C-alpha cells in the first residue's frame, strides 16, 4: 500500500499541463520577427542572449497568412519586431500586444515611398496580392537598414539591460558592416550613373532612391514566364527606359533568360532576401547584390 502511494505521488508530480505555445529556453527572452533581415539583425546584436522566433514561411513573409495559432505564437513573445511600412500585411488583421511590439522603421516613416495602384498578381503558389500602398523593402537602403538595426538594438537593450555592453558592442559591429555596405553601394551607384535598369518586381524602390539608381519595374516572377501582355509592357517601358539589365529577386528560369537575351537584356540577381533560413547570411547576400550591380557596366 505504501509503495503504491509513493508511486502515485511520483506519477502526480510528473504530470504537466499541455503546452500549446512554445516556451522559451530557460531565462531567455523570446523575440519574434516578421522577416529575415530583422532576424539577422537580432542574431547579430542579441546572439545567444535571446531565443528567436521567425516562423518557417514559404514565399515572401510580407504576404504570409498566419493561422490564429501562429499569431498567438507571436503574441507570447517578449518582443515583437515589425518591419513597418506595411510590410507584414497580416499585422493589419491580427492582434499583437502594442507594448511589446516595435516598429523598426518608425524613425523614417516620413520617408516611406507610396506606390501607385497596380494590378493584383500572384507569386507562384502564394495568394494573390498587390504592391500598391507603401513600398516595404526598406532594408535595401542600407542607411535605413542602419536605422532599423538601431531600433532593434534599443528594443533588445530594453529587454536585456544587464547585457547592455554586449549588445552595444554587437550593434556597433553590425553598424560597421551596414555602413560598409552603404559606402560600397554608393560607389557602385556613382559608377552606374544614369544607366537605366529594369526591376523584375516592384521591390527596388528604396535602393533606387537611396543610391540614385535609375530603375523602373515590371511585375515578373523568376519562375513564371510572363504572358504576352507582360512582354508588351516591357517593350513599352523600354521605349522610354532603354535598360539592358534586369534585376531579379532570384535566378530566373532559363526560358525567361533566353527571351530576355534575345531582346538584349541581361539579368542579375539582386535579392531583397526578405526570407531566409538558418544557413542564409543576409550580409553575404547583400554583398552579392552589390557585386551583381558592380558587374552591370560590364554587361552594358
Amino acid at each position: 500500500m505504501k509503495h503504491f502511494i509513493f508511486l502515485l505521488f511520483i506519477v502526480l508530480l510528473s504530470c504537466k499541463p499541455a503546452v500549446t505555445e512554445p516556451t522559451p529556453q530557460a531565462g531567455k527572452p523570446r523575440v519574434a520577427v516578421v522577416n529575415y533581415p530583422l532576424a539577422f539583425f537580432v542574431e547579430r546584436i542579441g546572439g545567444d542572449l535571446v531565443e528567436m522566433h521567425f516562423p518557417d514561411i514559404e514565399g515572401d513573409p510580407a504576404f504570409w497568412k498566419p493561422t490564429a495559432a501562429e499569431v498567438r505564437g507571436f503574441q507570447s513573445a517578449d518582443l515583437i519586431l515589425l518591419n513597418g511600412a506595411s510590410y507584414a500585411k497580416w499585422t493589419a488583421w491580427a492582434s499583437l500586444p502594442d507594448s511589446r511590439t516595435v516598429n523598426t522603421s518608425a524613425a523614417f516613416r516620413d520617408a516611406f515611398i507610396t506606390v501607385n495602384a497596380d494590378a493584383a498578381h500572384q507569386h507562384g503558389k502564394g495568394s494573390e496580392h498587390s504592391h500598391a500602398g507603401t513600398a516595404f523593402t526598406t532594408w535595401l537602403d542600407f542607411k535605413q537598414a542602419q536605422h532599423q538595426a538601431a531600433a532593434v538594438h534599443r528594443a533588445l537593450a530594453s529587454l536585456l539591460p544587464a547585457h547592455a555592453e554586449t549588445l552595444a558592442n554587437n550593434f556597433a559591429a553590425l553598424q560597421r558592416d551596414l555602413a560598409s555596405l552603404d559606402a560600397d553601394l554608393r560607389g557602385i551607384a556613382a559608377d552606374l550613373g544614369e544607366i537605366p535598369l529594369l526591376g523584375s518586381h516592384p521591390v527596388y524602390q528604396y535602393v533606387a532612391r537611396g543610391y540614385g539608381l535609375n530603375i523602373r519595374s515590371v511585375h515578373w516572377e523568376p519562375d513564371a514566364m510572363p504572358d504576352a501582355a507582360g512582354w508588351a509592357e516591357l517593350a513599352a517601358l523600354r521605349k522610354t527606359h532603354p535598360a539592358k539589365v534586369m534585376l531579379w529577386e532570384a535566378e530566373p528560369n532559363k526560358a525567361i533568360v533566353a527571351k530576355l537575351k534575345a531582346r538584349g537584356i541581361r539579368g542579375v540577381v539582386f535579392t531583397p532576401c526578405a526570407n531566409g533560413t538558418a544557413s542564409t547570411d543576409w550580409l553575404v547576400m547583400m554583398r552579392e547584390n552589390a557585386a551583381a550591380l558592380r558587374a552591370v557596366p560590364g554587361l552594358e
Partner: protein
Amino acid sequence: MIAGVGLSLYLPLAAHWAADAFDEALGARAATTPMIVGARGSRFDLVLHGLYFRARSEGTVAYGESTALREAGHGRVIPLHVQFTAGGQPVVGTSLDYFDFRKLQLARGESMALLGDCVLGANAAQQLKLGPNDKLKTDRKNLFDLAGDYPLQLNVSGVLAATGTADDEGVFVDVKTAWIIAGHGHGHNEQESNATNAPSAKLVKTHLEITPENMDTFHFHGDTTALPLTAILVEPMGAKETAMVMGRYQNNGTLQALKPPVVVDEMMGMVMRVRQFLDANYALVASTMGLLLALIVALSRRLRAQEMETLFLLGCSRGTQFALQAAELLMIFTTAGILALVAAWATVGWARDYLSTLAG
C-alpha cells in the same frame, strides 16, 4: 414592530454600506487606471466611459494620438473604442495590452488573435450563454437603416475569469475589429465579389462575416492614424511621465487628460454630500420610528396591563415583569438588527454587482 425597526436600521445601514461599497469599488477601479485621455467634454463622462464602458457621445480621439503617446515612451498606452453592443453587452475595442493592464485571466479558450475574434467577460458569457468557438453578432445601431452598416459576426475565442468588475460585462475585440463594426473598413467577400447589378442576383445580406478566406481583403479607408478611439488609457511609468502627459494636453483645445482617482474622488465627494442629506433624512425616519415604537410599547403595556397584573398576582415580581418586557424589546431589536444587517449585506452585494453593470 420587527419590520418597522428593521427597516429603520436597514435604510441608513444599507445606504452607508452601499455608498461605501460604491466608493470602494469605484475607487479601486479608478486607482488601477492612472490616466485617461479623451475628447474634451464632461470629465465624469470620460472617466465613467473609460472605467465602465459607459456610452459617450462627446467626440473621439485619433488613433495616431495613442501611437504618439506610446512612441513618446511615457508608459503603457491602451486604445479604447466603445461604441457598440453585442447581445446588449458593450463591445470594447482595445489591444491585447488591456488584459495585462487589468490583470485579466482567461478561464476558457484563448486570446483574440485575428480580426473578428472576441473574448467575453464572465458575465457576458453567462448572459449570452456563449463559449469558445461560438459566434456572436454585434447589435444593429439602427434597426430601420436597412442600407446601413451590417452587424459583424464575431468569433468567440475565449472567456475571461470573473473579476467582479465592469470587465465581466465586456465583449473584447481588437480595436481594428471595432473599426470594422463602425464601418471604417471593409473586406471583399464572395457575396460582394459575385454580386451583379441584376436585382434578381442581389444577395440578401444579414451580417458581415470575417472568414479565413476573406480576412486578408479587409482594409481601412484612409490612414489608420486618423481612425477614431473613444478614449486612451495611459499607465505612465512614474510621476515625471504623468506630469508630462498632463502637460501635453493642458492647453489642448480638443483633448483632455484626466486622472480617474482624482475625478472619482470628486464624484464621490458629491455622493457623500447627498449621503449627508440622506443621513439627516434617516435620522428623521429613525426618530419617527422611535416615537412610534415608544407609542407601541406604551399601548402594548396598557393592553397587557391585566396580563401583567395576573402574572404579578401569580407571583411574578415587578422586576421580572420589567425584565420580560425588556427582553421582548431586546428580541425585537436583535431580530430587527440581524435582519437589517443581513439585508444590508445583501444590498451591498447587489450594489457591487450593479456597479459592474454600469457598463454599457
